[in-house]
């Protein structure tokens, strides 16, 4: 990590105690430890904090963890803990047995919390610091979660010390809470009326799905804009992570530009089979369903759905001559690889005597036998392709093969 960021964080902590230390002094101390003595940055941060704490006679610098409470970043499930932290986000609980849910953070990190209705705890306010004694940490959907129950004591603290969240690369996110600096890459069609916006954000290490649920005061992200997102919720479903932005703070940085890394894995080969269900499909319009309908507009769950919506996709087999992968290309990739837009496909299906079969045939003849370089994530037995490009002829590869073939000729 960049030492100047650590120095800024330490300087803020000292300032919050009413003392002033030059930031470059702090950075020099850190640099000495890290660069001259090979101390890991986290250890150097602790050393400098405790040194400054003694020097300026300030106590309770967060990070210099005292024995009677735990650093949030170090909480592990199945533990009784006491923490001091700031409520950085509140969300609407979805059960009457829950009084409040949200995120609480200290200088070390952040954790989701749940206050049970039966706990009799005071109502927590966003932006306020609290000392929470004898809470329990458990694991909910693979993410640590702090439970405030009837045996927990919650005391508001007089503190307004600012917090600098630790921003992580997208590739390093884990279920729980995360802060990232990302660009809004892509907007997807929302599958539910309760979703304000869903799509993809990314940084140089990869991309991740995000969702903003409809809620008063929530604005959608602007495509192409860079955001600092503090304390978003990181969820996991089927091995895939996604960011829920409702809990977090979003700060647009309009002048910034960052590169987007593809993440996932690369898969190359030729398309040797295009499966049934490729081309134009009709999807069930029922909120959250999205299943593909039969030709009679029949959804296996919601029966006849005349108000379906159209979608375009390719289910195929990518084969490199050694192994085969089932791949699934969604609308955008299908449009660019098959050279047919969804609107065009709908028009063809409505005007051709073959209907949707005509679209299947066109997509099939556009992709069969073609060499593709795909990027995507392998889930279960299928690769979900996030981007694909035709593999191009490379004269360098030809030259290398000529060398190789001629080696013993």
């Amino acid at each position, binding site marked *: 990590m960049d030492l100047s960021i650590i120095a800024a964080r330490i300087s803020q902590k000292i300032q919050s105690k009413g003392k002033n230390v030059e930031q470059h002094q702090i950075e020099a101390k850190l640099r000495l430890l890290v660069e001259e003595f090979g101390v890991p940055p986290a250890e150097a941060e602790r050393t400098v904090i405790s040194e400054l704490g003694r020097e300026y006679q300030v106590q309770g610098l967060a990070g210099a963890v005292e024995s009677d409470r735990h650093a949030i970043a170090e909480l592990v499930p199945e533990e009784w803990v006491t923490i001091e932290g700031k409520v950085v986000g509140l969300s609407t609980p979805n059960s009457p047995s829950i009084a409040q849910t949200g995120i609480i953070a200290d200088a070390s990190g952040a954790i989701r919390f749940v206050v049970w209705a039966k706990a009799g705890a005071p109502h927590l306010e966003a932006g306020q610091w609290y000392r929470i004694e004898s809470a329990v940490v458990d694991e909910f959907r693979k993410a640590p979660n702090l439970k405030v129950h009837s045996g927990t004591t919650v005391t508001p603290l007089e503190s307004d010390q600012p917090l600098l969240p630790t921003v992580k690369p997208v590739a390093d996110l884990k279920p729980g809470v995360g802060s990232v600096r990302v660009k809004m890459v892509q907007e997807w069609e929302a599958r539910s009326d309760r979703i304000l916006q869903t799509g993809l954000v990314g940084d140089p290490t990869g991309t991740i799905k995000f969702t903003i649920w409809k809620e008063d005061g929530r604005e959608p992200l602007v495509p192409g804009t860079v955001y600092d997102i503090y304390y978003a919720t990181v969820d996991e479903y089927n091995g895939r992570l996604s960011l829920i932005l409702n809990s977090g703070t979003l700060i647009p940085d309009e002048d910034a530009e960052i590169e987007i890394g593809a993440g996932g894995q690369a898969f190359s080969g030729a398309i040797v089979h295009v499966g049934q269900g490729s081309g134009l499909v009709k999807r069930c319009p029922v909120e959250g369903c999205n299943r593909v309908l039969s030709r009679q507009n029949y959804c296996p769950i919601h029966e006849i759905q005349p108000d379906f919506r159209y979608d375009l996709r390719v289910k195929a087999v990518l084969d490199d*001559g050694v192994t*085969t992968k089932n791949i699934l290309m969604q609308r955008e990739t299908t449009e660019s690889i098959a050279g047919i837009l969804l609107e065009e496909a709908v028009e063809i299906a409505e005007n051709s005597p073959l209907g949707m079969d005509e679209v299947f045939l066109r997509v*099939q003849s556009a992709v069969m*036998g073609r060499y593709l370089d795909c990027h995507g994530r392998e889930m279960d037995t299928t690769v979900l392709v996030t981007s694909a490009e035709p593999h191009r002829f490379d004269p360098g590869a*030809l030259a290398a093969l*000529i060398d190789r*073939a001629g080696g013993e000729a």
Partner: protein
Amino acid sequence: MNTPQSPFGSRREVRFEREPARRVFAAELRESRHQFREGTEEKSPTYVLLPTGQRCNRVFVVGSLTEKQRQGEQNIFYRARVIDPTGTTFVTAGNYQPEAMQQIARIEPPAFVAVVGKPNVFEAPDGGGVYVSLRAESVTVVDHETRDLWVLDAAKATLDRIDAYGTTEDSKRAGEEYRIDPALFRKTVADALAQMNL
């Protein structure tokens, strides 16, 4: 025996491994003679052993379809010739390959085509020798660049097989079945690549 538990329930528990489509030049496929079946059940896959020492149940070829022939009255049957830089691969499609048959029916030769098919070795009834052909699963018109990419792909795959010769079970078996020095195919590859360099 434990079946790995899938989050999607039982329907995905049986994992079927699809046979990869091997890249084989016409000159090598033509020399293949040895066909065998793995296992004893009716649906057990059959393989053709390539002289460079790899079994194949499926082949991927891209070349020029120069000629097609329709045969039969009741049972229509198509034969096509697909040319690559090393020679001709014979492709067939009958009633049991309706999709490939309809695709061939629509194609006007000459055209670059991508063929995925199952190799078959058979003897001519009048003692006229042994032939290898591909029973097509799919025949699609493609562009020139796809053909060029395939030549590189087939060249690389052939060289890989030659380099691995003698180190795998299949290649030891090929050493017993064939009297062709696999190094000869290195020359085939070099010639094929030389034609690309114009």
